[in-house]
């Protein structure tokens, strides 16, 4: 099957360029940095010194739900940056270097080419998210109190839709531009713009993908999945698929050489 050949090539490439090693490790570090550093913050402040004697450092005791949100916060900023940077050349780079001139003169269906790349990126991102958040969960249970495996898995699944959207935005720009830097810039810019628009029109855009983490927090705190969360997830998936279709159409219309 042509699709499998394309998909397997991507997965193999991720092995050869070590993405299967470093991306999950980076996600682990991002997910655990806040749980660990917040736990040690009093000691860190003390050892740094400079505070008048007798100062009592009082930090709020964080609930597990809040700590999960800290992990997601890191993934939403630096994690998204990492996804953007490691995906910025997946199509753009091939067109820029000229490999695509060899690949796309073969009878390759454009939808296969794009969806295989999308799926391979998602495999990597979802695996990294899973392993990163399980690491966070490990620390939360040691340092902050119990959080059920059930709720952390729900967090991973719903948050995964958000990262799926990030990957889809990147794929979309990958088909429009040949310069990886521009792809990365526009991907980040789009996500920032979306969040600004969501804030300005918060009363209308209730199910904006940017609200996903907010509803996730509610879910962890209350233990129940709100309909807003489900709808936001559905909207996020629909936008992702829409971007993917747009990418396929764009690549079909593109001239693949100069």
């Amino acid at each position: 099957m042509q699709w499998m050949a394309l998909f397997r090539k991507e997965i193999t490439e991720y092995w050869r360029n070590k993405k299967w090693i470093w991306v999950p490790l980076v996600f682990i570090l991002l997910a655990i940095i806040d749980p660990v550093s917040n736990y040690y913050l009093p000691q860190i402040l003390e050892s740094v010194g400079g505070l008048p004697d007798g100062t009592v450092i009082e930090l709020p005791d964080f609930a597990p739900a809040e700590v999960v949100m800290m992990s997601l916060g890191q993934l939403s900023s630096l994690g998204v940056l990492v996804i953007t940077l490691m995906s910025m050349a997946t199509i753009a780079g091939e067109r820029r270097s000229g490999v695509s001139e060899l690949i796309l003169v073969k009878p390759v269906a454009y939808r296969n080419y794009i969806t295989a790349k999308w799926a391979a990126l998602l495999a990597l991102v979802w695996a990294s998210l899973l392993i990163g958040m399980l690491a966070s969960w490990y620390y939360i249970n040691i340092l902050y109190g119990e959080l059920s495996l059930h709720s952390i898995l729900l967090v991973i699944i719903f948050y995964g839709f958000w990262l799926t959207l990030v990957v889809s935005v990147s794929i979309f720009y990958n088909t429009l531009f040949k310069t990886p830097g521009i792809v990365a810039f526009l991907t980040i810019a789009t996500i920032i713009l979306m969040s600004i628009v969501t804030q300005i029109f918060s009363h209308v855009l209730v199910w904006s993908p940017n609200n996903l983490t907010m509803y996730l927090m509610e879910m962890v705190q209350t233990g129940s999945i709100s309909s807003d969360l489900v709808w936001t997830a559905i909207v996020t998936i629909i936008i992702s698929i829409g971007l993917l279709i747009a990418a396929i159409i764009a690549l079909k219309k593109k001239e693949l050489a100069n």
Partner: protein
Amino acid sequence: MTLLTVNKLSKSYDGKNVVKDVSFEFHNGKCIALIGPNGAGKTTILRTLAGLLKPSAGTIQFSNMKEKDDIRKYIGYLPQYPVFYTWMTGMEFMIYSGRLSYLSEAEAKKRAETLLEKVGIIDAKDRKIGKYSGGMKQRLGIAQAIIHKPKLLMLDEPVSSLDPIGRREVLTLMKELKEEMTILFSTHILSDAEEVSDELLLLNKGEIVESGSMVELRKKYQTSIIKLEFQGDLAKYQEPINALASVANSSIERDVLQVSVSDIAEARQEILTYVLKEGCPLTSFTLDRASLEDMFMKVVTG
């Protein structure tokens, strides 16, 4: 049998016509050279035929192709500077190419072995492409282009970046391959075209200025030249000889008077008669034929 018909193909970028109203036909089993100076539009034509570029106007029609069929199934294409995934081995790239062309894993593997053997890099099949030399990459490029047994193989300047040995090897390979498929290749070097091709398409500034079979063209552009050498000053003989009825024109190059003539027998008669009558100190009389190279230069420089 006609393989491919190109009708009034044009391609422009930003209002600039790179290819203008180009029409031609290919027949099965021929080797066609697309020849012209750099910037004539050769690469653009090849890329358009390969489907990498979309024509601004005109049509490309393969014979026996169904309405919605993918043209790319029938062609193999090697760009001038092929870029590979350097992290793959030669074998991996071949199998990947085969799988993309709808071969099964087993078929692709078998065919890859055969072709790597044929192009002579079977010993390097498990080496990373990043470690291949230029000539090896070119040969891998040809092998990957024919993995799906295309009807038309297109090669963009296949030998121009190679050293003399690599060039020889690739030309020999092309001679073998043209027994199995139609080959269209571009070049700016006439001797390469003369060596392997049956037909020529001469391109200049985006237009076809001349085309035909090698034999036809040779005949058409064969002008005869008589080279004369005299003792003493040549110049004084040029004018009277020019005046002879069968002489088209003449020029002096070094110590030789080169006379182009339309009818060789008649010219010989006239020139020798003149020489005898005037008692000129003729020291050498040579018949020569203009090569295709002269024609190429003449057509291209206008």
